[in-house]
């Protein structure tokens, strides 16, 4: 029996009340952290202003370029990773051919049939998702396009980053109110309850009309229905109870009002709401996997509040060294900073929710004006429960193509999330020095 120190036990008692996943003390072995780990992806399409995307040094001495400056207060909890890429995203054409495999690492198909692979977030969700209300949430602040690009790849590749399997991207939830609703009700389980209820009623009526030997067989069925109902119901009740108790104890459970229906007119409000929803979901363990598409590849968003180009994000990216595009990039990075700071303000065990998470910010390109994606901008925030060292700048630009795969990074993250696979996408080895 592992030794559990007294402080952890006491803390554990308090935390147990509002975080339902901890229902037995044996969860606190004397390991660094027994809190659930979360993974999130934030995506901005079309690349960055490479003159201002930089990081040097480690820890408190890290110097961040202008586009990364929103992360200054958190720099000891981040990793700025340079030089990773997806080989399958190069040499196939621009834009959708560079995005369809961002999180999958596979090849993708032209023409009528869309085909990629399962994305890293969905892979993780398949493994850890059954312990939470939602296996994952897939959000976006921009609607999808599904026509064809001039390279003959579908724009579905540009509009989605999460893929549930090789043939289907996960549909993005663009409406904050609907994303909010899924946190408080696994509509799926509620709907199943209604069905089971009704079916059990029908079976009860039926059992009065059949012979005793047959009734025994039908009893097996009714008992099973009741069992399943009870389990589903108790999981829901545990969630409600946890929420109620938390409120009673004045624990700092983040709460937010339900967003208004529809899409916010101001883009800034849209991104904030989506980040708030992810923060709430992580903190209350409604899910442990999230992806947020802030701006698509080939994004048509435009930012009147930023004094950037009026013709939109994608057009501006063709002039990515401009100040306007730098401001766009910095705005999106500030969403990462906002979310990370929010998670860092939520105490959890000896640290914060951020310490037990990993948020990955990335883009489909490095340089928009040349459509260069031979290396991708990546920032990681959070330490995954002490398994991921933070406060570093990691440079793989010269490591050689075999040693700088995005999928090697994904394998490393999956390891730390408890998902052990031998290969993912185009990688069979983990990233060195992660």
């Amino acid at each position, binding site marked *: 029996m592992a030794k559990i120190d007294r402080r952890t036990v006491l803390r554990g008692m308090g935390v147990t009340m509002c975080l339902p996943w901890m229902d037995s003390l044996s969860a606190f072995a004397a390991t660094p952290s027994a809190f659930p780990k979360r993974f999130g992806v934030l995506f901005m399409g079309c690349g960055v202003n490479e003159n201002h995307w930089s990081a040097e040094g480690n820890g408190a001495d890290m110097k961040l370029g202008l586009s990364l400056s929103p992360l200054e207060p958190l720099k000891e909890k981040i990793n700025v990773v340079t030089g990773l890429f997806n080989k399958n995203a190069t040499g196939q054409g621009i834009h959708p051919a560079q995005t369809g495999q961002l999180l999958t690492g596979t090849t993708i198909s032209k023409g009528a049939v869309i085909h990629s692979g399962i994305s890293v977030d969905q892979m993780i969700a398949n493994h850890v998702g059954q312990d939470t209300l939602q296996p994952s949430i897939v959000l976006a602040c921009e609607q999808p396009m599904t026509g064809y690009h001039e390279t*003959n790849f579908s724009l579905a590749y540009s509009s989605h980053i999460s893929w549930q399997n090789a043939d289907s991207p996960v549909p993005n939830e663009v409406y904050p109110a609907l994303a909010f609703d899924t946190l408080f009700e696994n509509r799926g389980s509620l709907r199943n309850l209604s069905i089971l209820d009704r079916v059990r009623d029908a079976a009860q009526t039926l059992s009065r*009309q059949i012979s005793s030997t047959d009734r025994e067989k039908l009893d097996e069925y009714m008992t099973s229905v009741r069992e399943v109902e009870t389990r589903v119901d108790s999981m829901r009740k545990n969630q409600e109870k946890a929420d109620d108790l938390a409120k009673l104890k004045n624990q700092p459970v983040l709460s937010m009002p339900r967003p208004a229906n529809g899409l916010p007119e101001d883009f800034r409000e849209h991104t904030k709401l989506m980040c708030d929803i992810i923060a709430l979901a992580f903190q209350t363990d409604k899910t442990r996997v999230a992806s947020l598409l802030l701006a698509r590849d080939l994004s048509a968003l435009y930012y009147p509040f930023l004094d950037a180009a009026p013709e939109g994000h994608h057009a501006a990216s063709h002039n990515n060294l401009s100040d306007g595009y730098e401001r766009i990039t910095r705005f999106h990075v500030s969403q990462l900073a906002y979310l990370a700071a929010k998670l860092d303000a939520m105490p959890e065990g000896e640290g914060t929710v951020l310490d037990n998470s990993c948020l990955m910010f990335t883009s489909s390109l490095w340089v928009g004006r040349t459509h260069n994606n031979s290396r991708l901008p990546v920032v990681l925030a959070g330490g995954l429960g002490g398994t991921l060292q933070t406060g570093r700048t990691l440079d793989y630009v010269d490591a050689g193509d075999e040693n700088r795969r995005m999928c090697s990074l994904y394998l490393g993250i999956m390891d730390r999330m408890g998902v052990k696979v031998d290969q993912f996408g185009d990688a069979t080895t983990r990233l060195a020095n992660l």
Partner: protein
Amino acid sequence: MTKLHAVLFTPVLVLAGIAVPMNAAAPATEVAVERGFTGTVQPFVATYCTSCHSGEKAAGQLDLRSYTTVDSVVHDYARWNRVIARLTAKEMPPATAKQPSDADRQQVIDWIQATWQNEARLHDGDPGVVLARRLSNSEYNYTIRDLTGVDIQPAREFPVDPANQAGFDNSGESLAMSPALLNKYLLAARDVADHMYLNGTGFSFAPHPMLVETDLDQYCIQQIVDFYERQDTDYADYFRAAWIYKNRGVLGKPKATLAEIAAQNKVSAKYLATVWQALDAREDAGPLAKLQGMWRALPVPKANQPDLANDGAVQMRDFVSRMRLDTAMRFASPGVKGLSTASQPLFNWKNAQYASHRRDFDRAALRVEGEPPPVAPVLPLDKNGKPVALGLVGTGPNGEDLTPLRAEIAAYTSRMANPDLVVPAGQRPRYEAAFAKFSSVFPDTFYVKERGRFYPDPGDDKGRLLSAGFHNVMGYTRDDTPLKELILDDKGQKELEALWDQFEFVADYTARTYVQFFFNQSGEILGNGRESGTLRPADKDVTAEAIIMNFKTSYLDFVTKAAAQKADPVAFEAVAQHFERVNAVLRGVERERVTAEPRHLDALMAFAARAYRRPLSAAERADILSFYHSLREKSGLTHEDAMRDSVVSVLMSPYFCYRLDLSTSRAQPSPYARASVATPAAPLSDFALASRLSYFLWSSMPDAELLAHASTGDLHKEPVLTAQVRLMLKDDRAVGLSTEFGGNWLDFRRFEDINTVDRERFPDFTNALREAMFQEPIRLIGEVIRSDRPVLDLLYGNYTFVNPVLATHYGMPEVTGGPDHWVRIDNARDYQRGGLLPMAVFLTQNAPGLRTSPVKRGYWVARRVLGEVIPPPPPVVPELPKDESKLDMPLRDVLAQHRKNPACASCHARFDTFGLTFENYGPVGESRTKDLAGHAVDTQATFPGGTQATGLSGLQTYIHANREKDFLDNLNRKMLVYALGRSLQLSDEPLIQRMNTRLAANGYRVSALIDTIVSSPQFLNRRASSDSSNATPRKAAN
């Protein structure tokens, strides 16, 4: 013949169970039977048997002391048959034990036989207790296949079903439900419901889930494109058919009509008539005249020359295609300064022009003799003097649409080289009329299924099915007017309209196209460029009529301003029409969704009735509706979600996933039971009978025809019943019987999952070969069923079925095609195959990976094929080596050792030697002459009884001479258990006898076997329990 030989020989006949003589001895009374048991049998057993046959470690697992009542003996009659056998053969008590007198022995034998007779006569025809049960996994899969029309196989991840004693998984004796399994049922039901999609008249199921937009698009588009591709649009086929009609007298069909010839040649009758009229007339000028000349020049055939005109027809077609390529019309987007040519209202206008002018032609393609020829068109030059590139959307330097110019450039050479485009001086009007007539009959294309940005030049934009050719954003264009007008009849036209309607209804494509336009392109009228959108409005509904009309106004204003700079006046019309059309479609779809809702609910009722395999009662209909409404009102679900959940609840209902048709109700007097009231029986309702038939012969739900007979109430009547059985056995769904019955009877049902073969040592054993091996017996049994062959074909037939990979494995001549291409091999014996016995699946299944196993193979023959019951081996048995290559003497010699041990021999003598005849087949059933250690194989064997034989033919001869009745009797019993869904009981023995008799009297044909079962009281009735119930028997089922 030694005494030993006689002793071994005799029991064989007895084990077949035909030992129950149904002679007219005086019926024993129950009291007499009881007295016989207590007075004679029990003391005998106590004296001579229980010293070995009692307690936990009873010899042969037979504890005779445990039988304390007559009922217990009757219940275990199969075991007591063996008691008779051993006693009669004087094998028991063993020679070393105390022996009873012959008279005492005979008394016990007589008692047993009399008891059997009594029981059987009393209860002959007893349906027995057939428990209501859930569907087995396979039945669930087949049922979903037939219910939805799509082979979704939702039960593929269910845990393997347990089997009953007879080895079948379709009985309530072994099938149970648990919470874990119910959870899987729920997931499976959701999986099936996810494949559902609503259309204008009801709902259907797609081969893949229909939840994500890309899935919906793909499904609907593929249906339309598949429809297009099913239509014959090749002119050559029509010219050929017309020629056949012209020469129909010579070709042997003088009375054939044009329509009949069209049908025979698989072309459209409507269009053939049009083509015939055009060819048969006489033009005096233009391309039609030339074509008619070519037509008249086609050769006249003799009677056996139906293909004589093929080349000529192709030439005619090539002429037509060339003419139309050179005269096809081309269109440009109307120009509006400040708007791209790719602006949707303008671009769609262009597409619509193409779609409506395919039976027209480009007058500029004609050139008049004597007039100066047209100058070669060229692209404008850029500032470096080079031809300008077309850019992303085909726009030129002045914002003009360059795609028609590009097409003109591509066509110029061909046009200039085409003499048939030259018109004599002064005759332009006459020739234009001729070309118009020609083009009307022969469109430049019947339909367009792919379109890129630079249409008609595809460039790299291939595979964009039904695409409008927009850049980046989605959009579709329908361009199939000539197909509709010329080729499709009324029915075809309706079908095509329905598919486009379905596309709109299911995938909502016009609305989604408009939304993408809103966010990605509509900013063009604000001057923000071609790839910019409008900021989102406060109201989330960008598809509202007001917003669409607002766009119309804004665009028209824009065009008005641009008109001052000479915008094309057509642009006004294009813009207005575009937004009007979008709005009309969106509003129409909204209305259609409302009107469709009640139709969806009707479809839900129909679905439930099919799922429950009987009509619904009024209460059930109301219940389904009220559940739907509670989902809408209380749970707040959308109509689509509520429909899906309703489908899930139908699939979770016990009426679907349970065989309640087997369920009993209160006792009723029965006209069928010939017996006394000892076992009250009631006839199955016709609906219950329909299900029993279909689950027997198809492992799936009854079809509409069976249910129609059930409705009429004549399904149980003799001619109808037999006729239905005939039809069902010939139906493709009978594969359920060959797979589930055959697979479980012969123990290969799970073969698709085996992994005992070392694939490094046997690299030929791929998944494809494994699958082919699995299919082979199913194909053979399927053929025997479908063609009503003698069941003995299974043992001795000189034929089998192979696909390409299996043919290679067997060393047979190459079979071409894919894995689903199976051919019949009629001289299989030439390759050491034929019938079930030498099939690779059994030889592999019964071999432990790296060597053969005569023991296992022989056991399989004795147990599965011949129906012998052999107790399991004792716990301590020395292992044989795993790898044959490591044996220093041949396996047969190793085995001979363990037959020398008398403790082992008593069982092994009965089957080891069967396995030795298969030694010329290796561990994966491959033919061989040497084993893996290099020893020559020897297939000689000495069978029980002393017969010597060699190889498969030796085994077959032996079975034919000595064991054929065992095979037939075993097959009968197994089939009966499978059909009834319960283990056999003593009262079934007379039926078994009738089955055997009838089978032999009908050439051993399968239909005799099945007919006897289906017309038996056991099958047609059910036990009526005396369990009183307050409710009256359910009327709904009747």
